[in-house]
């Protein structure tokens, strides 16, 4: 096992981290602002993958990857107007139960529309093949996944720290009542953030589809890793989402290299340790 083997594994870890980041950031931003755990986030990710696959089948990959986030955001809009808005004032238990129920409703809707058989979504021509860097051949598409994650991270970071909208969101996260008193329309902010979170889930689904398989249960399977990421990282913060994703990606990848039998256990051990030492995660949102 020479150096190129380790670089290859490092890239694998980064790639998995970025994929998880795309998923967890939407969930964590929604939670940070609204204190609302949307367990149906995984189901929205699955819908994103399905929409991307069916659009791509007739109009090509790029159309699929563009349409999916918008379509899922529209679905998020509908969910917000008819369901989430009413649940805002009810306690966390009721919210968890409602969004937990949504998982199964959305799963069955997926099965009704697209059936039980897996859908195909191939890597586009432009991103097919491999690039050779210093003697290491690595699939182009995996670099693309990393790039999308990185772009999402930078854009969200700039938006949150440099824009007025970002300042309003941060104010809402810190103290939503005070922000409302200062004349910020917190309700509209919530609505916007919820739709952006949903769009990110849809984007994650579209990006993950050529790498993984588009099957109905994909949303349920991804939910636990996503929750682990945001619990380790700290609920509600961008920094938490990226750190949590990196920790998860590296533990999974290098766990698979050193002790495959323990790979899936290790992350839970880490989760337990974090919860004991820092119950609110490594980088929780301020005031959250």
């Amino acid at each position, binding site marked *: 096992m020479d150096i190129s*083997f380790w670089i290859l*594994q490092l890239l694998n870890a980064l790639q998995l981290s970025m*994929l998880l980041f795309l998923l967890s950031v939407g969930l964590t931003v929604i939670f940070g602002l609204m204190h609302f755990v949307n367990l149906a986030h995984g189901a929205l990710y699955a819908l994103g993958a399905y929409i991307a696959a069916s659009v791509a089948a007739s109009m090509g990959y790029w159309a699929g990857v563009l349409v999916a986030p918008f379509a899922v955001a529209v679905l998020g809009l509908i969910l917000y107007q008819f369901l989430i808005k009413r649940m805002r004032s009810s306690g966390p238990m009721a919210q968890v139960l409602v969004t937990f129920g949504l998982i199964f409703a959305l799963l069955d809707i997926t099965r009704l529309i697209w059936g039980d058989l*897996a859908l195909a979504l191939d*890597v586009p021509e432009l991103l097919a093949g491999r690039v050779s860097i210093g003697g290491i051949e690595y699939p182009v598409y995996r670099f693309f996944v990393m790039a999308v994650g990185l772009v999402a991270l930078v854009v969200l970071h700039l938006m949150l720290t440099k824009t007025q909208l970002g300042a309003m969101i941060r104010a809402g996260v810190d103290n939503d009542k005070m922000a409302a008193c200062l004349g910020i329309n917190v309700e509209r902010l919530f609505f916007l953030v919820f739709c952006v979170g949903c769009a990110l889930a849809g984007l994650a689904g579209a990006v993950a589809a050529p790498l*993984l398989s*588009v099957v109905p*249960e994909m949303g349920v399977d991804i939910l636990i890793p996503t929750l682990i990421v945001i619990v380790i990282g700290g609920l509600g913060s961008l920094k938490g989402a990226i750190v949590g994703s990196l920790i998860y990606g590296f533990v999974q990848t290098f766990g698979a*290299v050193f002790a495959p039998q323990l*790979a899936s256990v290790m992350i839970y051990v880490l989760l337990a340790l974090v919860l004991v030492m820092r119950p609110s995660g490594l980088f929780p949102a301020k005031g959250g």
Partner: protein
Amino acid sequence: MKKVAIAAALTLGAFNVANVSAETVKVGMLLPYSGVYAALGNEIEAGFNLGLQEFGPDLDIEIVKEDSEADPGKSLAKARKLVLQDKVDVMTGIVSSAVAGALRDFVHGAKVPLMVTNAGNDSITGSSCSPYISRFSFSNSQVNGPMGQWVYDQGITKVYTMAPDYTAGHEMIEAFTKTFEAAGGQVVGSEYTPFRKTKDFGPYLAKAKSSGAEAIYTFYAGGEAISFVKQYDSFGLKSSLPLMGSGFLTSPLYVNAEGPAAIGVKTVLHYVPTIDSDMNNSFVQKFQQLNEGRSPSEYSVAGYDAAHALALAIKGGADDRESIAAAISKVSFTGPRGEVHIDPASNNIVQPLYVYETVAEGDGLTQKVLAQLPTTKAPADGCSL
């Protein structure tokens, strides 16, 4: 007056039962219609219904369907309902090995014949076999055992194995390893990945690449198979590290979702839709007519052959639990897979195996049969029927 009428009706009823031999045979079909195995459940049912149409169109058969949800606990409750409340004469279905294991003691104790149409765990027709449980699909070691010699005969001496970390994964890989090593080959590395929790196979593929192996031998199914084959191809391993394994990896049911990545993968199965025989050609044609042009898979053929066997048993005079169980153990016929029969020593199916390569055909993919391995009987393995 009313009492007399009822008494008359009862006597008449009893009279009917005693004299008419063609009694309704009630079949309890326990398949997953929801959850991860839903596609397989529907596929098996489509095969079973076609088989009944074909071999017993005028038999008096009533089917009671239940959704197993591929959950051992729920399946056991549904099985009890089928046996105790619906009073079925025979049960069929079962996709998950865990469900088969959970049902075993109940059907054995209730003396209800169960025709398994997928679950491949060796024990159900091995160490915990039952005269009431027969299997029309395959057993894990039956499918993979003969591949050891075949792979070695292709000039491959070093292999890296990979499979999901659960019973089927272990049984399939162990059966292959045993015969491959006996033939003179060497397994240079072996990996069991967390079942249904592995998103990225990259780390494992990199290990396989640097292990010095000449080929990868693997078993994955469903969504995991799709991810695995696509990721294997994306790393460009096809030329240096050929992919082989048990054919569920590139099952016709979902190979189209794998796309061109699956081209060139060589695997083994007990059935592929491209077997060239009259029996199979007519089966494929009829199945396609009923299923929007989709070809049948190894899953639907198990349902089809189970229906064939049941029809033969009923035509032979079997009409209750005891007689159906006895007749099923002796059944023998030619189906789409070729000549098959139930091994009286274990109640497992005895069938030929097909090594096939996934190749491109037009816009899609098809299965090119490379070799037919001799009819294999799974070892009785602690079973004494």
